[in-house]
């Protein structure tokens, strides 16, 4: 298979997954117990008001019609109501929050930079620290560094990120006063403040994962270094660094990247929790406050957006994967 066909195949698969996810989400949220029309009908909820609310929200259509309106709204935008009470929701329309009188897409875009900053920075930190630490531990097997990394990894799996985060705030924020205890500065306004505010959230979220990745990388590198091609590479006189990095690590990274792809969903969840620990106003706090006020349009919109985001990120991981492991793209 050529690279182009591989990509086209993967893209088609992703569109299918997105459609199914949208279908499942829609069915769960709009057709199960919660009744959006009743929620927005006001009190007292007369049958006329209820019918009007249903018409306004487009809930008088059969379920497949509603689903179609919702899906096509993401691509082309959509309009609620008619006449004087009309509300426009421009594409890509992930719903319209009638409580906040704002399209959900707009809400998401104002909050996304916070969550994305946390998640991407933490992911970079955990991947780099994990792979570096694991490789070092593998090369220095049995020494103090190796033992330290493995101990942290075992204890780390049991400590939730928010506990680590809270302890980190207590130590570096309150006691030592080195770093801010919470809040967020936009990168565009103050890059240094952005970095300083995110340092603790990144570390808290990445710490445990880095330990887990270190352990995985370590066992993979040790496994690889015992293979025949490594003996050959050493025999033809390559430097130890070249042997480890080019022949050991490259192959060892393949399963690590696979696990990384699986962990992206968890990364987003971790970012949601981290937001709360460091009092940042990201996607997570948007979602949780929408849950608190039963703002269903926002709940569904954010959920679907999160699913789309993770699916897209997985596609990127797949492409990277095919670059590291040529067998995937060619075979």
């Amino acid at each position, binding site marked *: 298979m050529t690279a182009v066909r591989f990509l086209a195949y993967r893209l088609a698969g992703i569109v299918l997954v997105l459609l199914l996810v949208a279908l499942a989400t829609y069915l769960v949220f709009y057709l199960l117990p919660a009744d959006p029309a009743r929620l927005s009908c006001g009190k007292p909820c007369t049958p006329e008001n209820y019918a009007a609310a249903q018409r306004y929200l487009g809930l008088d259509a059969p379920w497949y019609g509603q689903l179609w309106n919702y899906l096509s709204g993401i691509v082309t935008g959509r309009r609620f109501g008619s006449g004087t009470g009309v509300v426009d929701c421009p594409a890509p329309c992930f719903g319209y929050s009638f409580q906040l009188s704002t399209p959900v897409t707009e809400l998401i875009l104002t909050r996304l930079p916070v969550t994305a900053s946390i998640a991407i920075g933490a992911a970079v930190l955990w991947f780099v620290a994990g792979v570096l630490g694991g490789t070092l531990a593998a090369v220095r097997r049995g020494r103090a560094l190796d033992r330290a990394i493995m101990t942290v990894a075992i204890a780390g799996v049991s400590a939730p990120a928010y506990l680590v985060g809270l302890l980190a705030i207590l130590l570096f924020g309150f006691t030592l006063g080195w770093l801010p205890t919470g809040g967020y500065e936009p990168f565009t306004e103050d890059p240094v403040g952005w970095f300083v505010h995110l340092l603790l959230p990144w570390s808290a979220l990445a710490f445990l994962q880095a330990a887990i990745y270190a352990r995985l990388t370590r066992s993979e590198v040790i496994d690889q270094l015992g293979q025949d091609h490594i003996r050959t590479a050493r025999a033809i006189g390559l430097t130890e660094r070249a042997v480890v990095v080019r022949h050991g690590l490259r192959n060892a990274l*393949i399963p690590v990247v696979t696990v990384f792809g699986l962990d992206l969903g968890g990364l987003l969840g971790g970012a949601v929790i981290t937001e709360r620990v460091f009092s940042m106003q990201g996607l997570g706090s948007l*979602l949780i406050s929408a849950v608190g006020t039963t703002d269903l349009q926002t709940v569904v919109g954010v959920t679907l957006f999160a699913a789309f985001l993770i699916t897209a990120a997985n596609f990127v991981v797949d492409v990277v994967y095919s670059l590291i492991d040529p067998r995937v793209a060619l075979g």
Partner: protein
Amino acid sequence: MTVLRHLRHDPWALAGGIVVLLFVLAAVLAPLLTAIPGQDPYRYHLDALDDSGAPRGFGGGISAQHWFGVEPLSGRDLFAIVVYGARTSILVGVGASAASVLVGVAVGLVAGYFGGWVDRVVSRVVDVMLGFPSLVFMISLTAVVAASFPKPLLIVLIIGFFGWPSVARVIRGQVLSLRSRTFATAAEAMGAPAGHVLARLLLPNVGASIIVYATILIPASIGTEAALSFLGVGVPPPTPSWGRSIGDAVAWFRVDPAYLVFPGGALFLLTLAFNAFGDGLRDALDPRVSRGRRSAATPVVDDRVVPNR
């Protein structure tokens, strides 16, 4: 039993098992334990607080009556909250894991045994679900169910629903290799119905994996419940929950760190103990892992399956 003998020589697993047992005992005996100092997790003790709502005295108001101090703002007994919180954590953890195992084993057995398009569909669904932002979905799902539905049961079902794919994947893999073994082929050749082969021949052979996976799932489910309660969408007040206490402690831990330390410590200790016990159990039940000392290269807790190497 070789399993017990093996566990006896694994100090980490032994310690983990004992700690888990102590927590379970504390949860079961919660009313008796809290009766010793004469406390319960619901009664307010405003006299134990100062004007700002913070507990009076050392360590969040630790005293002969309040062994772990009291909760800020309400003055409820923190020891009672932690002990009753163990009930919440363990019940939700075990309940959700049971749901995950039940669904996961059923799906895994069917997919592995029948193969073909059933297996392809199941495997794709599992792949998609494993990579999913499940916490985000769980948060959203707490919003859509009618308020009359009991919230703790909803939490159990939601956590259980997102736990089955990993079980299904492991069981499927095992059934795939088991069904080509001679005893399964022989039973089929003699005309045994699929149900008989699945329930009587294959299920008992994956029993060990089910036990190991349950011990991995329980601490994970406990952690998820704590995370949901921490975010304010989990078990509703006044039912004690460690996660919610930790979440409430965020606003207080500068003034009253003890309010974070006791529920947080309990959560960490129970999860660590479960993980240590689960590791030991896996070593004891899995003949492929070397008996005696575990080699350092064996992944201890992380049991994610790496496909297509």
